[in-house]
């Protein structure tokens, strides 16, 4: 059975520590969460100063850390974030299969909210050709972790200050600003539905895609491991600046 955790807003170190703790565990879990304060995470393979203005992050008090998953840099602010972990027999034996299975679940959830979204490329979900959700994946042994964002609203000024586009990408997409590329639930629906409505949409989609669910909570061991990882790894400059 899928355990669904309606989690709260946490700092980036604990959020990433917890996602990794869940990957290292044995459960089948969907966690819905948020970020406090606004934070930046970036992909395992990214070079730190290419995609993010670290100086601005420091100046503005925006904490940042490196994920274990690949993909790009994200400013986490007004968003619903999900992570889902489980065995590859359920979540996809190959990375592409996992992206397909899990992004279908997200697209469905958005449809439940009245949003006509579709997949684009490997790991994006778009509405009217603008990105509303970015997703990233990590795998370990037989288990899969996928986590992603669904934008409720956006502070375009902050996003454009902090996130950079390296030369090729901006030419490729003919963009002037990073934030030109994104849209939000608020933009699409004209409002942000209540937390309960949004949660229900995702829980409904989870039941459609993964069968029986129960609303559960984190156990003590998961919290302890998440804290250990947050302190030893995600707060650690050696990890953050490894590339």
């Amino acid at each position, binding site marked *: 059975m899928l355990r669904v955790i309606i989690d709260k807003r946490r700092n980036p170190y604990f959020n990433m520590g917890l996602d990794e703790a869940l990957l290292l565990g044995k459960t089948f879990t969907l966690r819905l969460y948020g970020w406090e304060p606004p934070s930046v995470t970036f*992909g*395992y*393979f*990214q*070079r730190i100063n*290419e*995609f993010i203005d670290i100086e601005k992050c420091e100046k503005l008090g925006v904490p940042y850390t490196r994920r*274990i*998953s*690949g*993909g*790009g*840099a994200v400013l986490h602010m007004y968003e619903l974030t999900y992570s889902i972990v489980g065995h590859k027999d359920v979540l996809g034996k*190959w*990375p*592409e299969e996992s*992206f397909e299975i899990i992004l279908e679940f997200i697209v469905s959830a958005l449809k439940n909210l009245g949003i006509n979204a579709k997949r684009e*490329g*490997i*790991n994006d979900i778009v509405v009217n050709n603008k990105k509303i959700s970015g997703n*990233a*994946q*990590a*795998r370990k042994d037989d288990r899969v972790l996928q986590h992603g964002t669904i934008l409720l609203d956006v502070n375009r000024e902050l996003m454009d200050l902090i996130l950079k586009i*390296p*030369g*090729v*990408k901006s030419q*490729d997409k003919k963009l002037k600003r990073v934030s030109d590329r994104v849209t939000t639930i608020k933009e699409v629906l004209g409002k942000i539905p209540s937390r309960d409505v949004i949660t229900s949409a995702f829980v409904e989609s989870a039941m459609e895609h993964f069968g029986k669910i129960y609303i559960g909570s984190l156990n003590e061991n998961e919290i302890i491991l998440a804290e250990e990882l947050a302190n030893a790894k995600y707060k650690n400059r050696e990890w953050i600046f490894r*590339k």
Partner: protein
Amino acid sequence: MPSTKTENGYSASEIKSGKYLKVMIKVKENIIEELIIHGDFFAFPEDAIDVLEKNAKGKTLDDVLKFIDELDVHLVGISKEDLKSVIKKAFEGAKSL
């Protein structure tokens, strides 16, 4: 096609193929001193890229291209061919440094 430029003593080459990939390389007398591979792609297991970078030190371009062929890695957003062509381009660019 990958483009090339120099950057802080490195020869750099980048490509956008699904995802963004950039390689930075330092070469001395045809031997790779340092190789940095970065971008917003996915690779499984993720440490395969770390292994590739470490292994490239002290090797020739051909060694590294062969290593990539034999490397057990599942790339998403870029291909082994992308990786090889960007490394080749960066290596060629390094000759002019």
